[in-house]
């Protein structure tokens, strides 16, 4: 069974935010009006987050796309009182939207703050409403949602492979963010297959994971030059 993972090369990332936009449209992520976004109510399954390094005047910014990092040992699924979130056998941390009671315990237990809550009924103004992806359910208000690694794409690709009576090949299933990345900074595949691109890259010396010290064992792996450990900034430069 594959263990899906993502490798993001920060040296290649141009901060174009195409991954963010692709994710919004692919997964029917609601449009949050600017005044609500300013109140911290923005919903985005993958965000381009600036990581500042060094101190003025030797300051540099490393833009970092952060989806749910799909931990192998996720702190969020343990705390859900209704089993609305679980780690599936292929390593995807999924969310059952129709069962979630909206207690937001998982959002608080997630050390990466990558779980989002529907503060209002989702809004899709104008053409957005006509451009909804029929493969992904629109979440109601009051539930938690998060990156599913475009799980619907996996189902589609697997069905296709099964219909043609063959195994799923590498590259047949990729999430929307990886597919769109114009800089080729994002890779996706089976981390357990030693020959896959992601497994090879993940073994490299430039590879690190966010908050590795917590033992959550994320399956989103970053490649970077320099000595940034991916911990919080203060520790890295202490």
């Amino acid at each position, binding site marked *: 069974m594959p263990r899906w993972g993502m490798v993001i090369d920060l040296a290649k990332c141009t901060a174009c935010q195409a991954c963010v936009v692709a994710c919004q449209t692919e997964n029917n992520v609601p449009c949050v009006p600017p005044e609500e976004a300013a109140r*911290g*109510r923005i919903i985005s399954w993958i965000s381009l987050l*600036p990581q500042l390094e060094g101190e003025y005047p030797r300051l540099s910014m490393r833009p970092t796309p952060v989806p749910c990092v799909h931990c192998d040992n996720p702190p969020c699924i343990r705390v859900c*009182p209704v089993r609305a979130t679980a780690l599936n056998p292929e390593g995807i941390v999924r969310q059952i939207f129709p069962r979630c*009671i909206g207690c937001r315990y998982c959002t608080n237990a997630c050390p990466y703050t990558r779980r989002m809550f529907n503060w209002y009924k989702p809004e899709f103004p104008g053409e957005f409403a006509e451009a909804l992806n029929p493969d992904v359910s629109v979440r109601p208000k009051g539930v938690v949602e998060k990156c599913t690694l475009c799980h619907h794409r996996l189902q589609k690709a697997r069905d296709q492979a099964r219909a043609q009576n063959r195994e799923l090949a590498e590259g047949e299933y990729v999430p929307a963010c990886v597919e769109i990345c114009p800089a080729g900074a994002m890779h996706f595949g089976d981390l357990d297959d030693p020959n896959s691109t992601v497994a090879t890259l993940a073994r490299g010396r430039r590879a690190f994971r966010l908050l590795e010290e917590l033992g959550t064992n994320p399956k989103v792996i970053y490649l970077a030059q320099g000595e940034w450990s991916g911990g*919080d900034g203060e520790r890295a430069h202490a």
Partner: protein
Amino acid sequence: METESEHTHNGNDWKLLQPVIATRGSFYYLAMCFLAFTSVAFFAWLRQLRYGLGVTGLNVPVYWGFYITNFVFFIGISHAGTLISAILRLCHAEWRRSITRAAEVITVLVLFFGVGSVIMDLGRPDRALNVLRSPNFRSPLLWDVCSISVYLTASTIYLLLPLIPDIAILRDHGARPGFLYRLLALGWRSTAKQKRILNTAISVMAVLVIPIAVSVHTVVSWVFAMTVQPMWHSSIFGPYFVVGAIFSGIASLIVAMALIRRIYFLEEYLKPVHFNNLGLLLLVMALLWFYFTFAEYITTFYGSDPSHLVVFYSKLTGRYALPFWIMFVTCFVIPVSILGRRKTRTITGTVVASLSVNVGMWLERFTIVVPTLSQPRLPWAKGNYSPTWVEIGITVGFGATFMFLYMLFTKFFPIVSIWEVQEGRTQAVPEVVTRVRSYLPGETLPSP
């Protein structure tokens, strides 16, 4: 007066029935006042149901705010009753007799507001029963569901058992609604056998509720402590929360007693000695609270984990310094300086200290919940939190509704246990004399 003649042989305790029998006009004014706040809360809740939790001040990453603070606070207050009353009963503290009922009612009523606060916090309260349909026993929130429902059941039984003889007094007195008292008196006729069974049942429940009460607040603390978030992930949280709960519980009890004493003219029953003794208990809890707080913060400071220190400094010198230091003054400086001296440990003194402790303990819960959430480990999701009128309205409304229900209780049942006071007069006095004698040399032990 008919009531007086009827109960003269009981030592004039008719005064305790007075609030049940007669209601003054001021009761209705006060009730209306409280219910006005209730309706504000209800209106706020309707708005929240209609538009979603967006109408609150919650955001990313401060997903929990006033509601969860209230949850911890109310569950903490609930330790007023059952725990204190059970401990005093088991210790044969004779001064307990006129205060246990007032304490036990707080427990049962306030638990509903603790649970209610969580319901307010849910994005989908309509799906709340999913905790029964697909429970995840690994979740501390589910442990909460279990322990709080056990606690509510146990403390309700523990409230009702000692009520039975008093309900029978009301029934015999012809208090209305008669069917209610006939039903709840459970055929009580004060026979020796009934008394024996009742006393055994009360003792059993008193022993049972102590571990249950301790478990409840421990589990509440584990909701936070079981995560890996900075300054939540602490093994001290279980006992720290239990101490805080008993602390705020005693404080609420003192305030309730002072109000009952004043409003129902029960100066004979709730005497300065009761306030003095509870005040001493409150003083002990204040010192314990300080010890735990100090231990918690010094450990964080000395360990200097950067992600913990960010939260630490936001409380001591940063954005949350104001609530933090108000908490410190109201939980420690004020109560200890008032209660530490016999001269100021008067009724007024203990009430002032108690009000201060209640403010402080609410702030303590707030400074545990919010600063950690607003400063997660990864630097980009920092946030701020300020509540909207919805949360404030629901919080105030909950407080007012609790007080209304408490008031209502005093109109249906005697808030000072009549039979226990009488028992104290007729049985406990000689019992205590023999007991004290038995401690002294040359005396034989009395059979219990």
